[in-house]
Protein backbone atom coordinates (compact mmCIF):
# COMPACT_ATOMS: atom_id res chain seq x y z
CA UNK A 1 0.00 0.00 0.00
CA UNK A 2 3.01 2.30 -0.21
CA UNK A 3 1.62 3.87 -3.35
CA UNK A 4 -1.72 4.61 -1.68
CA UNK A 5 -0.87 8.29 -1.32
CA UNK A 6 -0.06 8.73 -4.96
CA UNK A 7 -3.25 7.05 -6.13
CA UNK A 8 -5.25 9.79 -4.42
CA UNK A 9 -5.52 13.45 -5.29
CA UNK A 10 -3.65 15.79 -2.98
CA UNK A 11 -5.56 17.13 0.00
CA UNK A 12 -5.49 20.59 -1.54
CA UNK A 13 -6.96 19.31 -4.80
CA UNK A 14 -9.68 17.44 -2.91
CA UNK A 15 -10.49 20.47 -0.77
CA UNK A 16 -10.69 22.75 -3.81
CA UNK A 17 -12.83 20.26 -5.72
CA UNK A 18 -15.47 19.94 -3.02
CA UNK A 19 -15.40 23.56 -1.95
CA UNK A 20 -16.03 24.60 -5.53
CA UNK A 21 -18.72 21.97 -5.89
CA UNK A 22 -20.58 23.41 -2.90
CA UNK A 23 -20.15 27.01 -4.07
CA UNK A 24 -21.23 26.28 -7.64
CA UNK A 25 -24.22 24.27 -6.45
CA UNK A 26 -25.23 27.16 -4.16
CA UNK A 27 -24.64 29.82 -6.81
CA UNK A 28 -26.56 27.85 -9.40
CA UNK A 29 -29.57 27.04 -7.19
CA UNK A 30 -29.67 30.57 -5.82
CA UNK A 31 -29.80 31.91 -9.38
CA UNK A 32 -32.60 29.58 -10.43
CA UNK A 33 -34.54 30.53 -7.31
CA UNK A 34 -33.95 34.29 -7.33
CA UNK A 35 -34.57 35.25 -10.95
CA UNK A 36 -38.34 34.92 -10.81
CA UNK A 37 -38.82 36.41 -7.35
CA UNK A 38 -40.81 39.64 -7.22
CA UNK A 39 -38.67 42.67 -6.51
CA UNK A 40 -37.71 42.92 -2.85
CA UNK A 41 -34.67 43.87 -0.78
CA UNK A 42 -34.05 40.16 -0.35
CA UNK A 43 -33.93 39.66 -4.12
CA UNK A 44 -31.31 42.41 -4.46
CA UNK A 45 -29.29 40.73 -1.71
CA UNK A 46 -29.50 37.38 -3.48
CA UNK A 47 -28.18 38.95 -6.67
CA UNK A 48 -25.25 40.40 -4.76
CA UNK A 49 -24.54 37.08 -3.07
CA UNK A 50 -24.76 35.25 -6.38
CA UNK A 51 -22.13 37.60 -7.81
CA UNK A 52 -19.89 37.15 -4.76
CA UNK A 53 -20.10 33.39 -5.19
CA UNK A 54 -19.23 33.78 -8.88
CA UNK A 55 -16.15 35.87 -8.14
CA UNK A 56 -15.05 33.39 -5.46
CA UNK A 57 -15.50 30.44 -7.81
CA UNK A 58 -13.43 32.19 -10.45
CA UNK A 59 -10.59 32.93 -8.01
CA UNK A 60 -10.65 29.34 -6.71
CA UNK A 61 -10.69 28.04 -10.29
CA UNK A 62 -7.52 29.95 -11.09
CA UNK A 63 -5.86 28.62 -7.93
CA UNK A 64 -7.06 25.13 -8.73
CA UNK A 65 -5.78 25.23 -12.28
CA UNK A 66 -2.39 26.42 -11.03
CA UNK A 67 -2.37 23.59 -8.48
CA UNK A 68 -3.35 21.02 -11.06
CA UNK A 69 -0.67 22.12 -13.49
CA UNK A 70 1.99 21.73 -10.80
CA UNK A 71 0.54 18.60 -9.16
CA UNK A 72 -0.30 15.87 -11.68
CA UNK A 73 -3.47 13.99 -10.91
CA UNK A 74 -3.33 10.22 -10.24
CA UNK A 75 -3.58 8.01 -13.30
CA UNK A 76 -6.87 6.44 -14.26
CA UNK A 77 -7.10 2.65 -13.87
CA UNK A 78 -5.37 0.84 -16.73
CA UNK A 79 -8.45 -1.37 -17.04
CA UNK A 80 -10.46 1.61 -18.27
CA UNK A 81 -11.20 1.57 -22.01
CA UNK A 82 -9.30 4.24 -23.90
CA UNK A 83 -12.44 5.99 -25.14
CA UNK A 84 -13.62 6.40 -21.56
CA UNK A 85 -10.29 7.87 -20.54
CA UNK A 86 -10.51 10.32 -23.43
CA UNK A 87 -14.14 11.15 -22.68
CA UNK A 88 -13.31 11.80 -19.02
CA UNK A 89 -10.43 14.07 -20.02
CA UNK A 90 -12.54 16.01 -22.53
CA UNK A 91 -15.32 16.43 -19.98
CA UNK A 92 -12.83 17.67 -17.37
CA UNK A 93 -11.25 20.18 -19.71
CA UNK A 94 -14.69 21.42 -20.74
CA UNK A 95 -15.66 21.80 -17.07
CA UNK A 96 -12.50 23.75 -16.30
CA UNK A 97 -13.15 26.03 -19.28
CA UNK A 98 -16.77 26.61 -18.23
CA UNK A 99 -15.86 27.26 -14.59
CA UNK A 100 -13.36 29.87 -15.75
CA UNK A 101 -15.59 31.42 -18.43
CA UNK A 102 -18.98 31.52 -16.70
CA UNK A 103 -18.10 34.04 -13.96
CA UNK A 104 -16.72 36.60 -16.44
CA UNK A 105 -19.88 36.27 -18.56
CA UNK A 106 -21.88 37.07 -15.43
CA UNK A 107 -19.62 40.02 -14.76
CA UNK A 108 -20.07 41.32 -18.32
CA UNK A 109 -23.81 40.77 -18.11
CA UNK A 110 -23.89 42.65 -14.85
CA UNK A 111 -21.92 45.54 -16.36
CA UNK A 112 -24.22 45.72 -19.37
CA UNK A 113 -27.26 46.03 -17.09
CA UNK A 114 -25.61 48.98 -15.36
CA UNK A 115 -25.27 47.22 -12.02
CA UNK A 116 -21.60 46.89 -11.09
CA UNK A 117 -20.24 43.93 -9.17
CA UNK A 118 -18.95 44.84 -5.72
CA UNK A 119 -17.20 41.80 -4.31
CA UNK A 120 -18.36 41.15 -0.74
CA UNK A 121 -19.71 44.69 -0.77
CA UNK A 122 -16.12 45.89 -0.52
CA UNK A 123 -14.28 45.76 -3.81
CA UNK A 124 -15.93 47.20 -6.87
CA UNK A 125 -14.92 45.47 -10.08
CA UNK A 126 -14.49 47.79 -13.04
CA UNK A 127 -17.30 47.75 -15.57
CA UNK A 128 -15.94 46.30 -18.78
CA UNK A 129 -18.97 47.42 -20.77
CA UNK A 130 -21.23 50.41 -20.78
CA UNK A 131 -24.93 50.04 -20.08
CA UNK A 132 -26.56 48.38 -23.07
CA UNK A 133 -29.92 46.70 -22.71
CA UNK A 134 -29.80 44.66 -25.93
CA UNK A 135 -26.29 43.43 -25.21
CA UNK A 136 -27.33 42.61 -21.64
CA UNK A 137 -30.08 40.32 -22.94
CA UNK A 138 -27.60 38.49 -25.15
CA UNK A 139 -25.07 38.14 -22.35
CA UNK A 140 -27.78 36.83 -20.06
CA UNK A 141 -28.57 34.15 -22.64
CA UNK A 142 -24.87 33.26 -22.90
CA UNK A 143 -24.51 33.12 -19.10
CA UNK A 144 -27.58 30.92 -18.68
CA UNK A 145 -26.76 28.62 -21.61
CA UNK A 146 -23.22 28.04 -20.40
CA UNK A 147 -24.53 27.27 -16.94
CA UNK A 148 -26.96 24.64 -18.15
CA UNK A 149 -24.20 23.20 -20.33
CA UNK A 150 -22.10 22.96 -17.17
CA UNK A 151 -24.98 21.28 -15.35
CA UNK A 152 -25.16 18.64 -18.10
CA UNK A 153 -21.41 18.02 -17.89
CA UNK A 154 -21.51 17.84 -14.09
CA UNK A 155 -24.24 15.22 -14.32
CA UNK A 156 -22.14 13.16 -16.76
CA UNK A 157 -19.06 13.67 -14.58
CA UNK A 158 -20.80 12.52 -11.38
CA UNK A 159 -22.68 9.69 -13.08
CA UNK A 160 -19.36 8.39 -14.39
CA UNK A 161 -17.77 8.70 -10.94
CA UNK A 162 -20.65 6.75 -9.38
CA UNK A 163 -20.46 4.14 -12.10
CA UNK A 164 -16.76 3.64 -11.28
CA UNK A 165 -17.59 3.27 -7.62
CA UNK A 166 -20.70 1.13 -7.81
CA UNK A 167 -20.31 -0.85 -11.03
CA UNK A 168 -16.58 -1.03 -11.78
CA UNK A 169 -15.74 -0.98 -8.07
CA UNK A 170 -12.43 0.77 -8.73
CA UNK A 171 -10.70 3.65 -6.93
CA UNK A 172 -11.67 6.48 -9.26
CA UNK A 173 -14.25 8.10 -6.96
CA UNK A 174 -12.39 7.17 -3.80
CA UNK A 175 -9.27 9.11 -4.82
CA UNK A 176 -11.29 12.36 -4.78
CA UNK A 177 -13.30 11.70 -1.61
CA UNK A 178 -12.39 13.72 1.47
CA UNK A 179 -11.99 12.37 5.01
CA UNK A 180 -11.24 8.85 3.80
CA UNK A 181 -7.87 7.24 4.31
CA UNK A 182 -8.41 3.80 2.85
CA UNK A 183 -11.05 2.25 0.76
CA UNK A 184 -13.01 -0.24 2.83
CA UNK A 185 -12.98 -3.60 1.12
Amino acid at each position, binding site marked *: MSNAASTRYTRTAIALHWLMFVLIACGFSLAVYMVDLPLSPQKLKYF*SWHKWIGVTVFLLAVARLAWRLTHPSPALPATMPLWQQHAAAVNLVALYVLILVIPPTGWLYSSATGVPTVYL*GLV*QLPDLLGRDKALAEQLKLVHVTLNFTMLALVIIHSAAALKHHLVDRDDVLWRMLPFIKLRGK
Partner: protein
Amino acid sequence: MRGSLSGLITAAGVLLLQVATLAAAQTVLYDKSRITCVSRQENVPVEAQFRKFTAQIAFDPARPETGKAQIEIDLDSFDIGFDEYNNDARGKNWFDVRNFPRAKFVSSSMRALGGGKFEARGPLTIKGKTNEVAAPFTYKEEPGSGVFEGAFSIKRLQYNIGEGVWKDTSTVADEVQIRFRIVVAAAKPAAKK
Protein backbone atom coordinates in the same frame (compact mmCIF):
# COMPACT_ATOMS: atom_id res chain seq x y z
CA MET B 1 -29.65 101.32 -50.60
CA ARG B 2 -31.21 97.90 -50.53
CA GLY B 3 -28.10 96.42 -48.94
CA SER B 4 -27.98 98.92 -46.14
CA LEU B 5 -31.67 98.50 -45.40
CA SER B 6 -31.38 94.74 -45.00
CA GLY B 7 -28.28 95.36 -42.90
CA LEU B 8 -30.27 97.65 -40.64
CA ILE B 9 -33.07 95.12 -40.30
CA THR B 10 -30.58 92.40 -39.43
CA ALA B 11 -28.92 94.62 -36.84
CA ALA B 12 -32.28 95.45 -35.30
CA GLY B 13 -33.19 91.78 -35.27
CA VAL B 14 -29.98 90.82 -33.52
CA LEU B 15 -30.53 93.56 -30.95
CA LEU B 16 -34.08 92.44 -30.33
CA LEU B 17 -32.95 88.84 -29.94
CA GLN B 18 -30.29 89.90 -27.44
CA VAL B 19 -32.77 91.86 -25.39
CA ALA B 20 -35.22 88.99 -25.48
CA THR B 21 -32.70 86.33 -24.42
CA LEU B 22 -31.34 88.46 -21.60
CA ALA B 23 -34.77 89.11 -20.20
CA ALA B 24 -36.00 85.53 -20.42
CA ALA B 25 -34.57 82.37 -18.96
CA GLN B 26 -31.87 80.66 -20.91
CA THR B 27 -32.92 78.03 -23.39
CA VAL B 28 -32.21 74.58 -22.05
CA LEU B 29 -30.88 72.06 -24.56
CA TYR B 30 -32.67 69.01 -23.21
CA ASP B 31 -31.12 66.47 -25.53
CA LYS B 32 -27.71 67.38 -24.10
CA SER B 33 -28.85 67.63 -20.49
CA ARG B 34 -29.12 64.83 -17.95
CA ILE B 35 -30.39 64.45 -14.45
CA THR B 36 -29.52 61.16 -12.80
CA CYS B 37 -29.43 59.70 -9.34
CA VAL B 38 -27.07 57.12 -7.94
CA SER B 39 -28.37 54.88 -5.21
CA ARG B 40 -26.37 52.19 -3.45
CA GLN B 41 -27.70 48.78 -2.68
CA GLU B 42 -25.26 46.86 -0.55
CA ASN B 43 -22.59 49.26 -1.69
CA VAL B 44 -23.36 48.66 -5.36
CA PRO B 45 -23.83 52.02 -7.07
CA VAL B 46 -26.69 51.99 -9.54
CA GLU B 47 -27.43 54.96 -11.74
CA ALA B 48 -30.91 55.87 -12.85
CA GLN B 49 -31.95 58.65 -15.17
CA PHE B 50 -34.87 61.04 -15.05
CA ARG B 51 -35.63 61.28 -18.72
CA LYS B 52 -38.10 64.15 -18.51
CA PHE B 53 -37.70 67.42 -16.70
CA THR B 54 -38.11 71.11 -17.27
CA ALA B 55 -35.63 73.73 -16.14
CA GLN B 56 -35.81 77.49 -16.06
CA ILE B 57 -32.45 78.99 -15.51
CA ALA B 58 -31.17 82.54 -15.55
CA PHE B 59 -27.52 82.67 -14.61
CA ASP B 60 -24.73 85.10 -15.19
CA PRO B 61 -21.34 83.82 -13.97
CA ALA B 62 -20.24 87.43 -13.46
CA ARG B 63 -23.13 87.99 -11.04
CA PRO B 64 -24.01 84.55 -9.67
CA GLU B 65 -26.01 85.97 -6.74
CA THR B 66 -28.65 87.18 -9.22
CA GLY B 67 -29.01 83.67 -10.62
CA LYS B 68 -32.27 81.79 -10.49
CA ALA B 69 -33.17 78.21 -11.21
CA GLN B 70 -36.32 76.21 -11.08
CA ILE B 71 -36.25 72.56 -12.02
CA GLU B 72 -39.16 70.17 -12.20
CA ILE B 73 -38.59 66.49 -12.69
CA ASP B 74 -41.20 64.19 -14.12
CA LEU B 75 -40.86 61.21 -11.77
CA ASP B 76 -42.73 58.97 -14.17
CA SER B 77 -39.64 59.18 -16.38
CA PHE B 78 -37.40 57.45 -13.82
CA ASP B 79 -35.36 54.81 -15.61
CA ILE B 80 -33.02 52.50 -13.72
CA GLY B 81 -32.65 50.15 -16.66
CA PHE B 82 -35.09 47.39 -15.63
CA ASP B 83 -38.79 47.59 -16.45
CA GLU B 84 -39.72 45.70 -13.30
CA TYR B 85 -37.79 48.13 -11.12
CA ASN B 86 -39.11 51.16 -13.00
CA ASN B 87 -42.68 50.03 -12.41
CA ASP B 88 -41.95 49.48 -8.74
CA ALA B 89 -40.34 52.92 -8.50
CA ARG B 90 -43.56 54.55 -9.71
CA GLY B 91 -45.57 52.78 -7.02
CA LYS B 92 -46.58 53.90 -3.56
CA ASN B 93 -43.45 52.66 -1.79
CA TRP B 94 -41.13 54.79 -3.89
CA PHE B 95 -42.17 57.91 -5.77
CA ASP B 96 -45.92 57.35 -5.75
CA VAL B 97 -46.16 59.22 -9.04
CA ARG B 98 -49.95 59.13 -9.14
CA ASN B 99 -50.12 61.42 -6.12
CA PHE B 100 -46.78 63.15 -6.52
CA PRO B 101 -45.96 63.30 -10.22
CA ARG B 102 -43.13 65.79 -9.99
CA ALA B 103 -40.13 66.67 -7.89
CA LYS B 104 -39.33 70.35 -7.72
CA PHE B 105 -36.33 72.44 -6.86
CA VAL B 106 -36.50 76.22 -6.64
CA SER B 107 -33.37 78.16 -5.90
CA SER B 108 -33.64 80.70 -3.12
CA SER B 109 -30.04 81.85 -3.37
CA MET B 110 -26.94 81.37 -5.47
CA ARG B 111 -23.36 82.28 -4.74
CA ALA B 112 -19.85 81.81 -6.00
CA LEU B 113 -17.69 79.37 -4.06
CA GLY B 114 -14.51 80.40 -5.83
CA GLY B 115 -12.38 78.47 -8.27
CA GLY B 116 -15.11 78.41 -10.91
CA LYS B 117 -17.52 76.77 -8.51
CA PHE B 118 -20.95 77.97 -7.51
CA GLU B 119 -23.71 76.85 -5.22
CA ALA B 120 -27.46 76.94 -5.50
CA ARG B 121 -29.54 76.59 -2.36
CA GLY B 122 -33.21 76.10 -2.04
CA PRO B 123 -36.07 73.81 -1.18
CA LEU B 124 -36.34 70.46 -2.87
CA THR B 125 -39.78 68.89 -2.81
CA ILE B 126 -40.32 65.22 -3.52
CA LYS B 127 -43.36 63.19 -2.61
CA GLY B 128 -44.86 66.04 -0.64
CA LYS B 129 -41.81 66.50 1.58
CA THR B 130 -39.65 69.58 1.36
CA ASN B 131 -36.08 69.91 2.53
CA GLU B 132 -33.44 72.52 2.00
CA VAL B 133 -30.59 71.40 -0.24
CA ALA B 134 -27.33 72.94 -1.40
CA ALA B 135 -26.18 72.00 -4.85
CA PRO B 136 -22.61 72.88 -5.76
CA PHE B 137 -21.98 73.17 -9.47
CA THR B 138 -19.55 74.36 -12.07
CA TYR B 139 -20.40 76.49 -15.06
CA LYS B 140 -18.43 76.21 -18.25
CA GLU B 141 -18.94 78.13 -21.43
CA GLU B 142 -18.55 76.15 -24.56
CA PRO B 143 -19.01 77.42 -28.11
CA GLY B 144 -22.70 78.24 -28.38
CA SER B 145 -23.65 76.84 -24.99
CA GLY B 146 -23.17 76.93 -21.27
CA VAL B 147 -22.85 73.80 -19.16
CA PHE B 148 -23.93 73.48 -15.54
CA GLU B 149 -22.61 70.40 -13.87
CA GLY B 150 -22.91 69.31 -10.28
CA ALA B 151 -23.99 66.78 -7.71
CA PHE B 152 -25.38 66.70 -4.21
CA SER B 153 -26.73 64.07 -1.88
CA ILE B 154 -30.08 63.67 -0.25
CA LYS B 155 -31.39 61.24 2.32
CA ARG B 156 -34.16 59.30 0.64
CA LEU B 157 -35.99 58.59 3.89
CA GLN B 158 -36.43 62.32 4.52
CA TYR B 159 -38.70 62.20 1.48
CA ASN B 160 -40.33 58.87 2.32
CA ILE B 161 -38.74 57.37 -0.77
CA GLY B 162 -38.64 53.66 -0.15
CA GLU B 163 -41.34 52.76 2.34
CA GLY B 164 -42.38 49.43 3.79
CA VAL B 165 -39.76 46.74 3.32
CA TRP B 166 -37.52 49.27 1.56
CA LYS B 167 -37.18 51.43 4.66
CA ASP B 168 -34.35 49.19 5.77
CA THR B 169 -31.19 50.96 4.66
CA SER B 170 -29.02 47.84 4.86
CA THR B 171 -30.10 47.00 1.31
CA VAL B 172 -30.70 50.39 -0.29
CA ALA B 173 -28.68 53.08 1.44
CA ASP B 174 -30.37 56.20 2.75
CA GLU B 175 -28.00 58.48 0.90
CA VAL B 176 -28.73 59.04 -2.76
CA GLN B 177 -26.64 61.22 -4.99
CA ILE B 178 -28.33 63.50 -7.49
CA ARG B 179 -26.20 64.40 -10.48
CA PHE B 180 -27.04 66.99 -13.06
CA ARG B 181 -25.61 68.28 -16.26
CA ILE B 182 -27.73 70.98 -17.75
CA VAL B 183 -26.75 72.57 -21.02
CA VAL B 184 -28.20 75.91 -22.07
CA ALA B 185 -27.87 77.78 -25.33
CA ALA B 186 -25.39 80.63 -25.04
CA ALA B 187 -27.08 83.66 -23.48
CA LYS B 188 -25.67 85.95 -26.15
CA PRO B 189 -25.86 84.80 -29.73
CA ALA B 190 -22.35 84.30 -31.02
CA ALA B 191 -21.49 87.46 -32.94
CA LYS B 192 -20.95 86.81 -36.59
CA LYS B 193 -17.71 88.28 -37.80
